[in-house]
């Protein structure tokens, strides 16, 4: 019970802090520079590079699995011939 009350107090204090922070912001739309740097460092170019990396990794994984399957097949054909 006491714990829950404490939790509520902390939450409301946090809400007050948040609203204060919001009020302290100069009221202007758009993203300011720090926000831009923290969210879009490098203008979001790193996301593009990660996306390319994921695609290449996925395709190489596919290639690798196909290669393994093919080796198995080759072995079977070899056994058949001998």
């Amino acid at each position, binding site marked *: 019970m006491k714990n829950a009350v404490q939790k509520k107090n902390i939450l409301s204090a946090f809400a007050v802090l948040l609203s204060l922070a919001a009020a302290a912001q*100069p*009221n*202007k*739309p*758009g*993203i*300011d*520079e720090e926000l*831009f740097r923290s*969210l*879009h460092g*490098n*203008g*979001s*170019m790193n*996301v*593009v590079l*990660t*996306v*390319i990396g*994921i*695609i290449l990794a*996925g*395709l190489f994984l*596919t290639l690798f699995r*196909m290669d393994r*399957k*093919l080796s198995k*097949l080759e072995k*079977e*054909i070899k056994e*058949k011939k001998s």
Partner: protein
Amino acid sequence: MVIVSWKALANVFKRSYKFFCIVFLLIGFAGGILVPLAPGIISADSSSLSTFSGPFTVKVFGYNTHFRSAKSSLQGWITNEGKQPVNTCATSVNVIDDTHLELSFPPVAPLNDPLFGLTVYNDADGRLYMNSAIATTDTVRGGIVPACNPVVKNEKQDHFAFPFRYILYESMRNLFFHVPMWFTMIALLSWAVVNNLRFLRGFDMKYDRMANNAITTGIIFGLLGLITGSLWARVTWRAWWVDDVKLNGTAITMLSYLAYLVLRNSMEDEQKRARISAIYSIFAYVMMIVLIGVLPRLQGTDSLHPGNGGNPAFSSYDLDNSLRVFFYPAVAGWVLLGVWIYSVRYRMSNLKENLAAAEVKSRIA
């Protein structure tokens, strides 16, 4: 009159597609990574909440701009938006570096609207405009507005560049990598359905192998599209997954195709397996078309994807001509890569089939 048979056309395709695949992919990669983004204004910080109580300065943060190198032609002005826009020029311009700038303005009374648009102009970057850049808390309307008429020489910067868009910024380049994944998936799944129908016509197991390999390759591309899309959403929409019709539709599609794999592996008898998976695949395909092709485009749905829920996609706004130059080759390249992977898998399955057939023959003999 020239008669071209399908077989001859297919032969030409078979002989040339790998070459085109490589060329188109190279074009897509080179353009997608190397072409710069057009200059733009990322943020404008006003020193005061009021534009009327006294002179104020605005700190401008630009992207890919040339504030310092094109200093001589630099001008800045704010425009009171509304029915009759009025420009107020900066009295002094303090250039910090190529991307940072401080503009000083005289007191301005907001005529129509509490919002001001900001324009920074120089000959190298052209006209850079930021909508609703400065907001004022002033309630005074009318009064002294120092108006001016700035002269602009170049509307736009003159080198080839991708458009500058807020929040997207460089991540716009994912257009050449994330979007073609879906084009490839849909192409392969369509090919699968064609072969499912061909299979159901004469129960030739060859078509079953074609369809099955097209589906497995399509699933690979679908999963890659899902993962890369999730990453892109994290940066632009602030969440790994958002409640969007298109996202949920693709999730259901992927699950239904994964269920296809489970269904197929659960059956021993080859003919039965082929027939049931052919019919299941046709249903799954129709579901996919409805879920990702029709439902998100309906009026009244809400989607963050361009081209859905009332958003335009292939319009001049979303897909700029500079993007198209590389987008279409990139799509063709990725689709052909999908076809390439599919064809290798199909030929491998043929080999396996021949081996199994030889085994049956030797057992009988």
